[in-house]
């Protein structure tokens, strides 16, 4: 555990150079999206969605989507750079760290980044009156779980490629469809059966669904447990995959 914290500390020191800009953007981005989608698009969705005004309905989806964007941002280029360009991981593996420490410390930092941007988003959403229940705080652990479910397998993917061309492919063919078809902007019931399965299989929709129940204060029922467990499964499988891929690259 401690060695992972030492690795996380390194990433935090590194982050210290850019944190002001990053905090600013994690406040401005939700503000803009909330204005653009919630207020702008919301004006056309006069009947609301599922009996809820569009803005409060959509905000939890955007929060979950922000968590995923952040997780992917941190588990793609920074990971590739640690292998290929700056070679941070190789410097770390010469120290008394194990592969699990190097991976765990970096993932912990990714989750920290996601946590801060989700907190910023919650704050902005609260100011817009878009949170309907104190259960909204449950969004924080849900977002962390969702971020792990995405960051771990994506880190495994990144550790398996050698150029960032493959990262662009991932964004285009996996992340973009996932963001569109996971009930962030409209209920997945509007989707044809096939695309609905995209939502069921990938992690984001489960996170969106859980966040939505939390900020609207709706009882999600026992299905929520299964959704949470499904995200845990993505996270655990992702961890083992990533550990295997990291090991293959660091211990040769």
């Amino acid at each position, binding site marked *: 555990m401690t060695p992972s914290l030492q*690795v996380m500390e390194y990433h935090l020191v*590194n982050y210290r150079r850019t944190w002001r800009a990053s905090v600013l953007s994690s406040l401005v981005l939700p503000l803009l999206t909330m204005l653009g989608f919630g207020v702008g698009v919301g004006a056309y969705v006069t009947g609301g969605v599922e009996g809820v005004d569009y803005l409060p309905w959509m905000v939890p989806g955007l929060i979950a989507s922000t968590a995923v964007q952040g997780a992917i941002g941190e588990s793609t280029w920074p990971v590739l750079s640690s292998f290929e360009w700056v070679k941070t991981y*190789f410097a770390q593996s*010469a*120290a008394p760290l*194990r592969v699990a420490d190097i991976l765990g410390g970096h993932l912990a930092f990714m989750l920290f980044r996601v946590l801060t941007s989700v907190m910023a988003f919650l704050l902005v959403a609260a100011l817009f009156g878009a949170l309907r229940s104190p259960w909204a705080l449950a969004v924080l652990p849900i977002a962390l779980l969702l971020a792990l479910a995405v960051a771990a397998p994506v880190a495994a993917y990144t550790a398996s490629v050698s150029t960032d061309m493959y990262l662009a492919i991932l964004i285009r063919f996996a992340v973009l469809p996932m963001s569109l078809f996971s009930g962030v902007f409209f209920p997945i019931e509007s989707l044809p059966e096939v695309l609905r399965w995209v939502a069921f299989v990938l992690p984001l929709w489960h996170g969106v669904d859980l966040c939505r129940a939390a900020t609207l204060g709706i009882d999600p029922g026992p299905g929520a447990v299964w959704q949470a467990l499904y995200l845990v499964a993505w996270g655990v499988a992702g961890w083992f995959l990533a550990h295997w891929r990291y090991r293959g690259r*660091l211990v040769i």
Partner: protein
Amino acid sequence: MNSLIHARGLIKRFEGFTAVDGIDVDVRAGEAFGFLGPNGAGKSSTMRMIGCVSPPTDGVLRILGMDPRRDGPRIRARLGVCPQLDNLDPELTVRENLTTYARFFGIPRRVARARADELLDFVQLSERADSRVEPLSGGMKRRLTIARALVNEPDLVLLDEPTTGLDPQARHLVWERLFRLKQQGVTLVLTTHYMDEAEQLCDRLVVMDGGRIVAEGSPRALIETHSTREVVELRFPTDDQSGYADKLAGIGDRAEVLPDRILLYVGDGDDALAEVHRRSLSPASALVRRSSLEDVFLHLTGRTLVD
């Protein structure tokens, strides 16, 4: 066991080829030990096994009396590693590169900061402590990498081609710092393909070629064993030097014909040169010099270019 590094029949195989093909090595405390060899000789693979980041395929390897397969982190805690390619963090400051790295060894922050200042002083980078690493020159980066390798006060420092790519001033500064470490009793293990580096720094070295050790000893002993005391370099005013080889037969231990000159390996260069003149041969230029490690190296590993 007194050896810091003890290897017997050490083998590293990758898919389809054998990088290290059964080597025996012992490095004692306080020694400066060198791995010499052309590119692809297996030096770096050996260093990575010693650094406990690359598990041996076969054979015995003990580092500081421990087994790298089992005790990797415990061994690495007492090693300092200066890799061939700098992997400093270009965005961090010079000092932060040392303090964050020190934390990986569980060194408390305050101690890390004090040690960073000492080490920056040692590698003459104190004035750059707060500047970012990216704009530093190659020599400065290498010195910082060496400082980083010392941050845990290691028992054993591994340097993979410590001065490759540096200009002469920077090389000499690095050598001088490494020499001081050696005087302080730090055990150094380095790879190099610079003969002058090996002669300057190494008490003992092995020459590797094709994954095997082809010679072992002190620089002086290697020269005595594998070369003659002196070398006479003769250039004849012709495009084809080989025509003169027969005429030189019998002078010295052996002759080597190169495209532009002939090397005579001899005990006494002046005697040999006198004999050359007695045979009425008149080279355009003649140079008598002492045998160097480079002669040994080229003799043992050949002159064929390895890329």
